[in-house]
């Protein structure tokens, strides 16, 4: 008999990929839920696992974690929770970090919300927490689609000293595999796992390689002056335009993406997620960066999300 797995956040790219993968498996049936408030409509006795891949702002992350905990708090830790957190819980550190590293809420409300959300859901002892780096791959909005648009527009490229940070990438299929393994393996309750490819590239290396894969060549060297303009002058109006467009649900209209100060800060941060525990206990195999970039670029062109005239 197949197990019922609830997937909270099923409308985002990670959630939908988890749902699709579960649906084609021979051991589970996925129950997609857009938000945690939908949990109340299901009887927990029929459920063996819940995946929480809620994305969004700090309030949404916290509300989801709270609702999830409320739902399972009386089930004697029977239900396996797989909670997707974020590498932002490590704050602004510039070194290699394993799962025991001190958490630091110095990157603003988003990181603080993830730290608190982890605390909340881990009140349930059968919770496995995954801390992925930057999810990339076909359809990944933040680290593939948006970056592709910026690279095609030559607003991003080689960032010089500003892109010297380490880019802790995780290919979307690898993330889905990690979630599925975390659902099934016994005795993982309370464990936390970093998820990022070993030997991550620098942001410059990632952006240059992705630019080449997209045919956005020659990849431009972006001056510090231009980055200042982007983050100090253009970012706010572009972000507002993005929010308005989203709120008004203007279908195919995509305003130019913003290059935010927080993104630029991340590009300079030399944090490296130590994912050896995930390799060991979750038996993860990493998709190579070359393969991941090839697939990401192919999906971009297929979906015509960016101009492919250069290819």
């Amino acid at each position, binding site marked *: 008999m197949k197990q019922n797995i609830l997937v909270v956040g099923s409308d985002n790219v990670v959630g939908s990929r988890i749902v699709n993968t579960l649906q084609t498996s021979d051991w589970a049936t996925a129950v997609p839920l857009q938000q945690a408030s939908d949990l109340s409509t299901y009887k927990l006795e029929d459920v063996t696992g819940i995946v929480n891949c809620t994305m969004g702002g700090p309030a949404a992350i916290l509300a989801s974690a709270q609702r999830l905990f409320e739902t399972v708090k009386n089930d004697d830790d029977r239900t396996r929770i797989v909670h997707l957190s974020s590498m932002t819980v490590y704050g602004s550190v*510039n*070194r*290699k970090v394993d799962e025991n590293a001190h958490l630091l809420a110095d990157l603003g409300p988003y990181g603080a919300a993830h730290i608190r959300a982890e605390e909340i859901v881990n009140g349930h002892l059968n919770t496995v927490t995954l801390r992925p780096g930057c999810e990339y791959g076909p359809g990944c909005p933040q680290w593939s689609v948006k970056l592709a648009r910026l690279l095609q527009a030559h607003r991003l*490229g*080689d960032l*010089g*000293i500003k892109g*010297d940070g380490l880019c802790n990438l995780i290919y979307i299929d690898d993330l889905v595999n990690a979630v599925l393994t975390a659902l099934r393996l016994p005795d993982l309750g309370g464990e936390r796992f970093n998820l990022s490819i070993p030997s991550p590239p620098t942001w410059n290396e990632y952006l*240059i390689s992705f*630019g*080449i894969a997209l045919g956005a*060549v*020659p*990849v*431009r*060297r*972006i*001056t*510090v*002056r231009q980055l200042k303009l982007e983050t100090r002058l253009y970012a706010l109006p572009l972000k507002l335009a993005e929010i308005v467009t989203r709120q008004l649900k203007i279908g195919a209209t995509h305003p130019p993406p913003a290059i935010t100060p927080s993104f630029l800060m991340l590009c300079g941060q*030399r944090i490296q997620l130590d994912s050896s525990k995930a390799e060991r206990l979750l038996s993860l195999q990493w998709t190579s960066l070359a393969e991941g970039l090839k697939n990401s670029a192919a999906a971009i062109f297929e979906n015509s999300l960016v101009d492919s005239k250069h290819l």
Partner: protein
Amino acid sequence: MILDARDFPDGHSLTSDICVVGAGAAGISLALELANTQFSVLVLESGGLKPEQETQNLYAGTVVDERLHSLPDRYRQRRFGGTTTIWGGRCMPFDAIDFEARDYVQHSGWPINLDALTSFYPKANQLCEAGQFAYTSTSAFNKPLRPMIKGFRSLNFSTDTLERFSCPTDFGARYGNRLETAQNVRILLHANATSLDLDKDGHQLNSVAVTTLPGRRLNVRAHQFVLANGGLEVARLMLASRGVHANGIGNHHDVLGRYYMCHIAGTVGALTIYGPLDSVWNGYDISDEGVYCRRRIALNSTTQREYHLANFVARLHHPRITDPAHKNSILSSLYLAKFLIPYEYGKRLHGDERADLKTWLKHIRNLSMGPFDAAKFAWHMLRDRRLADRKFPSIIIKSKANLYSVDFHAEQEPNPHSRVTLDHSVDALGMPRLKIDWRYSKTDVHTVSKSLELLATDIAQSGTGKLAYDPANLEYEMTRYGAYGGHHIGTARMGTNPTSSVVDSNCRVHGIENLHIASAAVFPTSSQANPTLTIIALTLRLAQRLKNMLLNT
């Protein structure tokens, strides 16, 4: 962590696993490679984060013939980042033949071959921000490039090899932050290494004496020491450290400071390419990563052996700027604006002849004939060089008459009589100043004259053009501006025999257990290639060795 030696009390002692003297291309590359390891690293830098005249004056010295070699405080920068703060950024690896002992190039031959550096070159390329390690047009580009000279075929020369250009990367500005945040690295600014102090047996370096310009003295102890303070300063510091060995450290056999090389370079001839304007391409090609690349005319190794020539490359160049006969408004505008151009890049603009009023007027007339071309060029240089982070590397003029000159860059034969020694005068810290006696040899003249002869013949035989030059005047032309500035090579050469070399194949000073050199000073020969990329590759190789040594102890 970045510290300032002036903040420490007089007599203070510092310790570290590895002490690196100098924070230029080599010192910073070494520190980066050792960053975030278990070993503590202390980098001593004479200068600060900005240029300081008083510190720069410590480089002052004398030259025997100023027409042949610029003064020692030119083409070098004594500050964090070293000479990478002003370099041109040209990168290319050495060729396999450069490492060989060639009986027709006196004192040639390295104790290592190209394979020893092959695995380190890509990382060196990365540090220079010069893109992938691909130095032929076929490996660097997915599609065929337009021919350099349409129809040119030669058995002696290749037009397939490339030089790639760094931004040019200022290593201090680019990597300072990375070193500052590394847990195990300390950079000590305003720390002048003034003496290397050996143990009483003279086999072990105990400490480096450090002096600040205000006169404080510090002492640095370490397990391993690396001198990364440049091809001239390495020799100076070792020659001046006479506490145990009277002739200086590593100088039992009077080799230190000798075999001093630069490159033989010049611009000669009138090269006319037949056919339409698109028969020739003398500009840059931009790789997918955005790196400027340029092809050269490179003398192949078979021809070098056959005619007993050292290594040689040539590029298509614009006519000599100083001579208004070129009738080019852009070149004349450069001539007229030469006072705005830094010495290191402007030397060839100034020329060696005295410009009279007539010459000036001719340049002004040239400019008035093409003011729009000059304005367009000025805009291009402002946008693509002055304001760009990745700078357009040099002046490229597309001739409207397919008329060019040949800019050559040749290997110099090692010569024991070409040398640097200590002068009687001292600098503000009491260190003896350098005296430079740079010399070239008949082999150098032969290399240039025969190579140009072969090139002229091959161009004529392929029916693509005509290279005219005056062979009788060639020696004058190749030394018109003296030794190529900024390439200081060979003063502490590498070899297996301590009687004819200063360091062994691992860059360790013969007879001193814990003293290494990361610099072009160790190159036994100069190649045709600019030295920076190979300095860094050799430094990365040394870093690996140091890590292994410290792990084993």
